[in-house]
């Protein structure tokens, strides 16, 4: 079962190719859409909403043809735009109730669901104040609330963490995770920051220059590597020497990277050796952890391959 299916999706604006032969199958859950600015993320979202006809190719959203049945798609999808789209002269409650009505909810249901959704996104007393006085973080929450209020089957979140401070960013990512995991609503979330998506997405699609670079589950992308990071509070050099003497392959100067043979019990002697060496030297062990792949490594082959970046 897939939420979004595209086959050979291409969009050209005159001589500019925004999307180039994009074919993806996205499963339910939280899917990250990663790409630099101008990679075609926003174009893809417009096509998914049925607002922009593709030059060629097919696109299915929730089993509906987004080109022919755009209205039906938009009724079941929630959309949080990247840019600011909130009027200043109404309160969050009034705006979200109104948007719920425009999505076809009867008045009473619109009011009930608005109160619910605003609570879920973390707006409490301030929801009665005019939006004009809101902080960026609160505005993002209102934008998210209006995308969720009609209980869609899929939400498209365009750069939800844009302009937020680190704490606000964490809150927003936590919310994105909850929408997918607790609310049971599929999410397509875009970002140009890879590290963010790593934490909340089940799968990641990387686009660059309108082309699909890679589509994989986050678990694959962030699998454990066979490297043990070791950090101590003093005499790092001596520790490195001791570990090498014990037959381990060691790199790095401030943080030591100890090569492991692979996953599983075969590595246990290595952990023991590090522990014993540290104890023997009488120094403090600050950190000892298994390194993971980061999604950013997905980009490396692309940067090496010439001609991919248009």
């Amino acid at each position, binding site marked *: 079962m897939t939420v979004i299916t595209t086959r050979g999706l291409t969009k050209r604006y005159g001589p500019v190719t925004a999307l180039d032969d994009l074919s993806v199958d996205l499963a339910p859950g939280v899917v990250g859409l990663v790409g630099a600015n101008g990679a075609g993320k926003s174009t893809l979202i417009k096509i998914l*909403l049925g607002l922009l006809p593709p030059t060629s190719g097919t696109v299915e959203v929730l089993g509906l043809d987004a080109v022919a049945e755009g209205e039906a798609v938009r009724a079941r999808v929630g959309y949080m735009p990247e840019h600011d*789209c*909130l009027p200043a002269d*109404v309160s969050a409650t009034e705006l979200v109730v*109104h948007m719920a*009505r425009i999505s076809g909810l009867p008045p009473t*249901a619109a009011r009930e669901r608005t109160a619910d959704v605003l609570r879920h996104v973390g707006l409490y007393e301030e929801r009665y104040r005019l939006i004009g006085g809101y902080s960026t973080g609160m505005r993002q929450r209102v934008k998210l609330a209006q995308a969720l209020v009609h209980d869609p089957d899929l939400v498209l979140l365009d750069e939800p963490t844009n302009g937020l401070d680190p704490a606000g960013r964490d809150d927003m990512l936590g919310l994105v995770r909850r929408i997918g995991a*607790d609310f049971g609503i599929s999410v397509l979330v875009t970002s140009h920051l890879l590290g963010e998506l790593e934490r909340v997405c089940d799968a990641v699609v990387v686009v660059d220059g309108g082309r699909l670079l890679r589509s994989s589950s986050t678990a694959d992308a962030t699998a454990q590597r066979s490297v043990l990071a070791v950090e101590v509070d003093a005499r790092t050099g001596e520790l490195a020497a001791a570990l090498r003497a014990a037959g381990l392959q060691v790199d790095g100067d401030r943080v030591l990277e100890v090569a492991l043979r692979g996953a599983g019990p075969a590595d246990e002697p290595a952990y023991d050796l590090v522990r014993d060496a540290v104890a023997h030297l009488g120094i403090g062990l600050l950190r000892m952890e298994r390194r993971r792949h980061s999604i950013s490594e997905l980009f490396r082959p692309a940067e090496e391959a010439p001609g991919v970046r248009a």
Partner: protein
Amino acid sequence: MSVPDVPARSAGVIHDLGFRHYDGPRLGRRQVVRALFVESTRGAYGLGRSTRSKIMPFLLLAAVTLPALVVAVVLNVTGTASLGIGYAAYPISVLPLLSLYVAGQAPALVSRDLRFRVVTLYFSRPLRREDYVRAKLAALACATAVLTCLPVLVLYAGALLAQLPFWAQTRAAAVGLLGCLLLSMLLAGIALVIAAVTPRRGLGVAAVITVLVMLTAVQGILQALGQDQGNAGLEHWSGLLSPFTLVSGLQRWAFDAPLEDLPDPPGALGGWVYLAVALAVLAGSYALLVLRSRRVSVS
């Protein structure tokens, strides 16, 4: 049924129900358009908005209605035999106030959505662009109709209280109200088209005021010129230029409304031309608004 033994302590606990899904009814496009229409009409009087946005509409409503109220009271106190001002002539006499109202509200209805890009939220929903245009046009026409019709109704009530001839008054008031409705639609159409191409609200207000005042002024000058030179053609065709004289001309032609100093459509053809122009303005402003809404890009 046995009641389980619930500890008293839990009585005040708020349970987090989690995210509740909605499986109630979802309304169709017609009701959605109506919801947008109602919200916009309320917005045109600042209802559901800040106190500041209520001031102008209600001030203008009071200013437009007050003279009618004075006329009605004077009529009842002095017991004269006529109102002194015709129902059809009343909107013309408060013309600047009506212009001021549509100039203030048309940008509030449309420029606000364009400027803050709220249209993105509308068009990413099942609402069609024509639906949006229809709702906004109907909303401003309705809101303006309140402003034009209320004083006419006040005059009519005054006339009935003073026991002026019932049927004659009713007919004249009906002609007046009909004119008010047409005038409200014309003003709404013209003002919204101008507002839709001026995304900045202040600019929109100034543009609508300028256009309406200019049309009225040019019409007045041409009419005066025609009277001076004894050029009846110029005098009476000039009425096509302003929405106010367009409506008053139609009222003279179709119902013989007493509007002596305003242009009278010349001949049998004149009336039809006036009607055709009025309809063309309405259809044209709708078409232009739809065209404008299609050019709005989402995201």
